[in-house]
């Protein structure tokens, strides 16, 4: 959210979530929206940004309140905080773009039940200062957005022959429809994980590291 002048420590908090511990591909958290709304690149990015806002705002709030919340009721407190911000986002999206609201459907409200948000609140925000929590949460949120985009983009290209609604392959392309249907989500995600595993194995064996850059750019 504030990418300008960061001290290095905050910067590394930010980058950690973005790539090294990417919520989707490394931690495998928040799978429901990952699969459900990634039928197109635009939906994925909107969902990712909505989640980023909720994540950053609630982690910041949780971190501010970390000395006041009794341990026994902390989960309930976190959930209420998260639910408040999700309600805000829900109404905001409804006001900004009704068509987007209809496309994302109940999944905006379901951000409450995204294990990523609660997981970060519990594992990071509750133990760190507000600024560190904010950076970490923003990084995680953007990492989540990136992951969603990588899945949503591939699904839209294969399943509809388009990216952001623009036709890529001309009128003769026969769409691979199953990719925008539910099974496609599983397959594309599995495909990315396999690609990463192969790249990691290559790297460990000391072969061409060029494939890593290629894999990252293919997104």
């Amino acid at each position, binding site marked *: 959210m504030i990418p300008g002048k960061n001290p290095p420590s905050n910067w590394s908090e930010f980058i950690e979530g973005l790539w090294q511990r990417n919520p989707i591909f490394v931690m495998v958290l928040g799978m429901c929206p990952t699969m459900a709304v990634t039928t197109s690149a635009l939906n994925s990015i909107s969902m990712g940004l909505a989640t980023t806002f909720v994540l950053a705002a609630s982690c910041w709030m949780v971190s501010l309140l970390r000395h006041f919340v009794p341990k026994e009721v902390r989960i309930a407190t976190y959930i209420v905080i998260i639910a408040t911000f999700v309600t805000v986002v829900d109404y905001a999206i409804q006001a900004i773009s009704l068509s987007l609201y209809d496309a994302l459907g109940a999944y905006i409200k379901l951000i*409450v039940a995204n294990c990523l948000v609660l997981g970060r609140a519990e594992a990071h925000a509750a133990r760190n200062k507000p600024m560190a929590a904010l950076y970490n949460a923003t990084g995680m949120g953007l990492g989540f957005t990136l992951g969603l985009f990588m899945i949503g983009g591939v699904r839209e290209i294969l399943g509809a022959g388009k990216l952001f609604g623009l036709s890529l392959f001309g009128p003769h392309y026969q769409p691979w429809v199953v990719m925008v249907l539910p099974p496609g989500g599983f397959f594309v995600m599995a495909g990315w994980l396999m690609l990463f595993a192969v790249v990691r194995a290559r790297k460990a064996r000391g072969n061409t590291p060029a494939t890593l850059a290629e894999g990252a750019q293919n997104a």
Partner: protein
Amino acid sequence: MHDSVGQILITTILSGNFVLAMFLGMCPFLGVTHSVKVAFPLGLATTFVILMASLCAYLLNLVLIPLHMEFLQLICYITVIAAAVQLVEMFAKKQSPELFRALGIYLPLITTNCAVLGVALFQTARNYSFVQSLTFALGGGVGFTLALVLLASVRERVRFSKVPNAMMGTALTLMLAGVLSLSFMGFAGLGGGE
């Protein structure tokens, strides 16, 4: 809106399965399906919580909608669900401690199971009546259990087979889930569709 009870039941269990078609409740679906022994009780516990949540959501709507306080829906739902999960947790601890240990962290995590909140939200969005809501919840729970048990049994079978290195772990589970989802698509059209 005018779906009959039977239609809702068939749709939620098969063609519109919560996990495989609507992607609700993915975390336990990928996390606790190592063995059928754990997956089945978790499915039952979740079904119970879903039913409770559906019932409570229906009652809450009776209060919230006349008062024009729909913006509190989400917060109320999630609080009620958290309470219901706490109840199940206490019950499981008392009735069968070994099951309680086997389920571990995934029992409290039912709170953040999208399937539970999803039922409450979808039944509100679709204006289901009382009986329809409960049927929807029951079907959803049964469908969830079915998907969990199916994936767990497949994973038990492939545990000792030789899998390429790159596919080990989550990738393999996702691939299996994809195939499962593909086969559930064969039920499309059953129950009159959406």
